């Protein structure tokens, strides 16, 4: 069977939330701003992001993910990165599962 090599997707907002909020080097030092000794990683962000569930249920987030990307990059969204309806659903459910 002739096969196209596995396509690489650009990261969606959900992919990035997982990484930027949960991963990356965490500095434990006096010079880092903390709240009552707890590093301020993701504090309050989680609460805010919980509000995204509602948006994703109504499929708003897929457009929005695209829009933010376009705004952030100051340019057009790369080809091949258009979210399909199915992808939007998976994006929505993925966020809901957080």
């Amino acid at each position, binding site marked *: 069977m002739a096969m196209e090599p596995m396509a690489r997707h650009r990261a969606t907002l959900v992919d990035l*939330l997982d990484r930027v909020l949960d991963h990356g080097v965490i500095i434990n030092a006096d*010079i880092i*701003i903390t709240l009552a000794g707890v590093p301020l990683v993701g504090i309050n962000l989680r609460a805010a992001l919980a*509000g995204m569930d509602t948006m994703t249920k109504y499929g708003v987030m897929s457009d929005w993910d695209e829009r933010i990307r376009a705004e952030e990059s100051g340019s057009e969204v790369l080809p091949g990165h258009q979210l399909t309806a199915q992808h939007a659903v*998976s994006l929505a459910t993925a966020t809901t599962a957080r």
Partner: protein
Amino acid sequence: METQVQSPIEGRDTKTTGCYVYCVVPYAYEVCPDVTGIEGCRVYAIVHRGLGAIVHDCAAQPYRSEDAHLVASWVMAHHRVVEAAWERWGTVLPLTFNTIVKGADERSAVENTRMWLDVEHEWLRARLSSLTGKVEYGIQVFWDTETIARTVAVTNSEVRKLQEEIESKPRGLAYMYRQKLENLLRKGLEARAAEEFKDLYARISRCTANVRAEKVKNGELGRQMLVNLSCLVCQDRFPDLQAELDQVNNTEGFSVRLVGPLPPYSFC
């Protein structure tokens, strides 16, 4: 395009109370990627002993908001800076969101950041060099529950036996048997999922420098996420990984989503 940046201290307000640190890069010179940071902040490099911390000046308080759109735009901006630095320097050590160095004891935040680069110099160097030539990919493998359930129904001997039994029973008893069958099928599917996870994990591990299993997320209509991995991949091994994933993707009932390349967020 790159912007020339002056020496980090000269000409800068040394009373800046906080430095939001995006990432650390090797040998930063005095140039920065032409990219703006969170909320349009100017991004620059604090350079010390061949390492650069990519930062913007901010208040000595964390970013907090109840507005999901705003938070998302911060996260995207954070990523954009890390990605730009990654493209510029090839290797990057991303810091987690909201890492803010504060000024204290007569020392500015910039000086404290430089001090941190000094104290952690060896560790940072070692981490950066271990990440050279490697990138992160996200790999999610899904299976179509219905397709797999059908194969389990055919291949699982217990399920087959029960099916034959049901056919020989009067209709009134069918309901009870149906539940029994469903339970058996579910157990069969669970066992199969565990097997597939182990197999996929092993196959993917063979082509990657490091693997981190992430929490699987909910699937949608019949498609279930079986495996959610963050992988650190040597760039020259990527074709092997791609070939392995192609095989999985071409297996009936399975589909693969490959995301990346990304800066090595999950392997710092």
